[in-house]
């Protein structure tokens, strides 16, 4: 409905149905629509207030160390501690440990929001009846969840690194000595987000109910983590420490920690953690695709 004002002041308030003859975009635009829509809804936008609380708390929790450390440096200066350098008040590897659980919880929210409602309410049949190929739909949802998770898995440590550079007494000198930490944080954060997105989507692909998906992901991860911890600590065998590799809560942070050059728990090699992380992502992606290829509407 458009309104046109004429010289007489008369207005046309309804021109009836108008055919569209303009530009029609391709799958990239469709992908963008799916991804942005899911990102917004995962974070609670366009949804009731209750749906905004948990995402907000998780995002706030992820940024808390950055805010505290940077705030203290801004307020007090670099003489906060005589024993610890200002840029080491909250080391990046510790930040990734802090983020491990946060990213998992946000994944439980975002992945279940991405896949479950569309299946339960059969909106998926409309996406399948659009020009968007099913695999592209899945890719869009995966991209949305991964991007949302990068908001907490990548952005806070990256900002902390940027703050460390910017607040150093001589940023140029500091940059020369620490520039490589940025790319390492980037890779570690992206992998952490990808791992949790893959796990969350793999679980969500098996149910139409958000609650079941979120519960299964959190509960399953905690149980496996506990079992892996107990097995690695109690089994009296040479390779028992490798049971730790089964712990999905440790995989992401430990890869980041390895990338940042820090020693790992019980000397489990970094490449082993990386292999487990990449393999888990690949297996989860294959599972999701397999489930969705079998769906029919």
């Amino acid at each position: 409905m458009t309104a046109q004002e004429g010289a007489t002041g008369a207005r046309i308030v309804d021109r009836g149905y108008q055919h569209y003859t303009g530009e029609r975009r391709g799958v990239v635009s469709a992908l963008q629509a799916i991804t942005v829509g899911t990102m917004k809804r995962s974070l609670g936008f366009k949804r009731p207030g209750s749906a905004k609380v948990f995402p907000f708390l998780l995002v706030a929790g992820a940024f808390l160390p950055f805010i505290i450390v940077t705030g203290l440096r801004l307020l007090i200066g670099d003489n906060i501690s005589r024993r610890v350098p200002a840029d080491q008040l909250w080391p990046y590897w510790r930040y990734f440990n802090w983020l491990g659980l946060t990213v998992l919880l946000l994944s439980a929210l975002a992945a279940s929001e991405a896949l479950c409602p569309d299946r339960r309410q059969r909106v998926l049949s409309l996406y399948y009846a659009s020009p968007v190929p099913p695999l592209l739909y899945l890719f869009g949802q995966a991209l949305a969840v991964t991007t949302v998770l990068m908001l907490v898995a990548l952005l806070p440590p990256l900002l902390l690194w940027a703050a460390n550079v910017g607040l150093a007494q001589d940023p140029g000198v500091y940059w020369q000595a620490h520039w490589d930490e940025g790319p390492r944080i980037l890779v570690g954060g992206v992998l952490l987000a990808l791992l949790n997105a893959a796990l969350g989507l793999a679980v969500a692909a098996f149910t139409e109910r958000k609650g079941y998906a979120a519960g299964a992901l959190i509960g399953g991860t905690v149980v496996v983590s506990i079992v892996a911890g107990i097995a690695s600590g109690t089994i009296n065998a040479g390779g028992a420490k490798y049971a730790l590799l089964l712990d999905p809560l440790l995989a992401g942070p430990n890869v980041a920690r390895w990338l940042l050059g820090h020693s790992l728990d019980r000397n489990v090699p970094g490449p082993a953690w990386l292999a487990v992380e990449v393999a888990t992502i690949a297996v989860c992606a294959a599972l999701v695709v397999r489930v969705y290829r079998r769906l029919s509407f």
Partner: protein
Amino acid sequence: MTIAVADLAFEQQVTDAALVTTAGLTKTYGSVRALDGASLSVRAGCTALLGENGAGKSTLIKLLLGLNAASGGSASVLGFDPARQGPAVRARVGYFPEHDCLPNDWQAQDFVRQMGEVRGLPRRVAVQRASDVLAQVGLAEERYRQIGGFSTGMKQRVKLAQALVHDPQLVLLDEPTNGLDPLGRDQMIELVQRVVREMGINVLISSHLLADVQQVSDAVILLDRGRVVAQGALRDLLSDTDTLFIELIEENEAFVERLRHAGLRVDVRGRELRAALTDEAVFDAVRDAAAETGAGLTRLRRGARSLEEVFLSGTGAGSGDGTEAAGP
């Protein structure tokens, strides 16, 4: 992902006058033949796909959209083969599923806009067109409300709006009046009529409700157990079935024989006879037969068979061979 919808130029002309054609289209699920060699043709305007539940209407629609692979035969939609060019078909076609398909916690405006973007509209255009089509279906005031709070009739309107938002050349409506009360059904049929006549969008509407089909469609395709049993322009189907209803006091074989001897096609159901009303001479033949055989007539009524009768008899204009186009 090698298919780029942007490359699927919209200017491609449909060379065939028919929007949809199928030849021997078959779909089997295990031992069940959901669609059995369907050959049909759909032209511009509104065509009804009529059949009982399980007749194969939804199966046909999904094959036309390229959502399922056919077990045999071929189809063409707007000049594209849905089996190989599904995205091209789906970019040009709107789809209104029979089942619920709306996200309850979305605003109607957001959802229709999203469907517009997914089907290739730029975001700004999708926002504008979402508002427009929601207004066209009578939801201008309610478009910012959550769909979950809508009545069944309003939800059906949202389903229609999302099928129209990208300005398709053809809309496939699968049982759009399902679950609606009589008033809602009338309103939906009125909307479908507006889609065809005011918006100029072609419609293929499936239904098992004969009254709906008769109101809205220019042409009809009758499906029965996966087979096309009749198809053609609605007026042809009905005009070809002009009938003289004759009710006798008692059964009278001689009267019937006399009519048949006069060249009339007569269907006998006890005391009730139906004679094909080919011309006014049929009345003379009935009068003469009654006089000669002494048959007593209690009622003589001119009428047409309903579509239901056409459907139940499985015969009608252009029946069976599926070569005649369904179009006005």
